[in-house]
């Protein structure tokens, strides 16, 4: 509190209001509080296995939520992420199992890692095309693929469960480099890249500018159309990557289930992480923390015998509280 007083002169900001304080550090405090609570209250919390379970469960959420952060920063939203995960997850096994075209095993795995992500990226482009070209509100534009996308994945696989065992492909989820699960490394890499993108690159600044005031951004010569296309493509491709990780982890791909409800988790992570949902801000570290907080809340409740259904109610309260605090603080 004293720090802010010394850095910004003026009576109004002399002391930070509790709301502003909460909006800046609330997520981090909640994270610390959850860790502390678990250290004392949950048995075996400080174990490799607990860490592993939590990290692997949170990794796909973080990856999707980072794409969502970029989309939300431009003032948009992407409801289609869960369906794109299902599509990527449906196509990949068909490629390396040689159902689509005959292919040798090594090349098959390589293609199974690349093609689904490219397709998800193209579908993301389609979302962006609807938003920019036809000026359709993002929530409706991405609703199209939200509805149709899972159907496409189900049609491709005829609704069947695809079971597989392919250590090379599953390396992205089961593998370890230096003892760290590969999906955690992927998660950190995506977060680091997005952080650098926002902080260091021109397009990063442009994303923030478009979300802050689209008209002003256009008048200053920012290619608004291209910036928006970019964020939807990134969001789609990251959803594709998350889809691959999820099916690799499960050794199975079920088009009905892969990525189901993911859009809610991702949006919740962004909201709890402190990015305003109205755009103009992209707090990547906040989103990562937000995803961890949501995961830890769920874990804490489950580990202490609270049913999963009650955890849903708590998650709802958490989202409302986070958004309420952010908005009040941004007006204060």
């Amino acid at each position, binding site marked *: 509190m004293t720090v802010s007083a010394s850095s910004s002169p003026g009576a109004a900001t002399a002391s930070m209001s509790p709301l502003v304080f909460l909006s800046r550090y609330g997520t981090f405090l909640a994270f610390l509080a959850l860790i502390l609570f678990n250290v004392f209250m949950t048995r075996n919390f400080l174990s490799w296995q607990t860490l592993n379970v939590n990290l692997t469960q949170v990794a796909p959420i973080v990856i999707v939520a980072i794409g969502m952060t970029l989309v939300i920063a431009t003032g948009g*939203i992407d409801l289609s992420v869960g369906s794109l995960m299902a599509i990527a997850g449906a196509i990949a096994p068909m490629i390396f199992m040689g159902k689509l075209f005959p292919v040798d095993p090594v090349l098959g795995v390589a293609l199974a890692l690349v093609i689904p992500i490219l397709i998800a990226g193209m579908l993301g482009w389609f979302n962006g095309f*609807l938003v920019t070209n*036809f*000026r*359709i*509100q993002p*929530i*409706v*534009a991405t*609703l*199209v*693929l*939200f*509805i*149709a*996308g*899972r*159907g*496409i994945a*189900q*049609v491709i696989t*005829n*609704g069947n469960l695809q079971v597989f065992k392919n250590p090379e492909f599953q390396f992205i989820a089961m593998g370890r480099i230096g003892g760290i699960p590969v999906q955690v490394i992927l998660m950190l890499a995506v977060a680091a890249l997005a952080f650098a993108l926002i902080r260091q690159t021109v397009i990063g600044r442009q994303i923030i500018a478009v979300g802050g005031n689209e008209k002003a951004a256009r008048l200053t010569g920012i290619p608004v159309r291209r910036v928006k296309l970019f964020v939807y493509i990134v969001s789609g491709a990251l959803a594709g990557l998350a889809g691959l990780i999820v099916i690799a982890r499960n050794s199975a791909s079920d088009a009905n289930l892969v990525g189901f409800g993911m859009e*809610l988790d991702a*949006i*919740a992570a962004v*909201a709890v992480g402190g990015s305003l*949902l*109205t755009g103009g801000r992209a707090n990547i570290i906040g989103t990562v923390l937000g995803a961890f907080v949501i995961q830890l809340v769920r874990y804490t409740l489950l580990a202490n015998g609270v*049913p*999963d*259904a*009650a*955890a*849903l*109610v708590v*998650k*709802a*309260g958490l*989202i*409302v509280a986070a*958004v*309420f605090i952010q*908005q009040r603080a941004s007006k204060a």
Partner: protein
Amino acid sequence: MFPAILKPKTSGDLARLCVIVALFGLIAFGALRYDNFLSSFNMLSFLRYNSMFCLIALGMAFVIISGGIDLSVGAVAAMASVCAAMLSNHSWYAGLAAGVGAGLAAGLLNGFMVAKMRIQPFIATLAMMLAAYGTALLLANNQSVSVSYETGFTIIGQDDFLGFPIPAWIALAAFVLGWIVLERRPSGRHILAVGDGEMTAKLMGLNVDRTLVAVYAISGALAGLAGVILASQFGAGQPTEGIGWELFAIASVVVGGTLLTGGSGSVGATLAGALLLSMVFNILNFENGLGWISLSAYWQSVIRGGFLLVVVVLQARLNKHSHEGAAA
């Protein structure tokens, strides 16, 4: 309501005319192509099953016209179906009241979050969706709750009145009431004004908060009513039903020519939109019955998504032209 639509003045009117033409086109297609499509059995079971979807689409229309969105309707319907089933052994009206009451309570809470806490409708109702599913699962202990068959509760969803399914009567009554409230009373003007711009509405002296709470309450209560019909029709309260209903409802409203930006919209066209999207599935069943092609049920969502795509692109085109026309 139809005469106004048949003389299109704005792009919205034109879009609404299109959806009604498309609905009749689809019915004509079905009637010519399939033998029993227009049979009373098919039409009545179609109406019986789809009444609950029409009810949530109506509630969604109110919310969207006010400039908001309600993502919680599916979960609220599920929760209401559980509440209704649990109280259906007392009497049929206890079940009905429990379901509608649960929906109304959820809707009021949504309205409170949107109007008083100033949380974006999207987020507030998303949170309600999670909370309602959680509550439904907790109440039902993660299973479906069977309803009482002794108190006449199942009549609501399964029986006919004057040869017409009771759920369809309920939906019809709700749409007539909705049409009166939205298009024939001052209350409707208030909702449209709030959807057009809250600031302006406030400056005109309208009670914006009360209007917002009212539309979410209406949506919640109608979702609750849909939940009662669900429980009554299938003989059980189903905590895991209702997933994706909100998107069906939004799609119906959008296909019905209502812009998601609020400030315009029509009850009749929403009904046409809901029936149109439901009929796609009915036609698919008949097409499969012919045996020439075999489309799995999964095509349903692909086709619905495609429909939504065509409609929103057409709407965007129409709007662009009308804006250019106004500028010139």
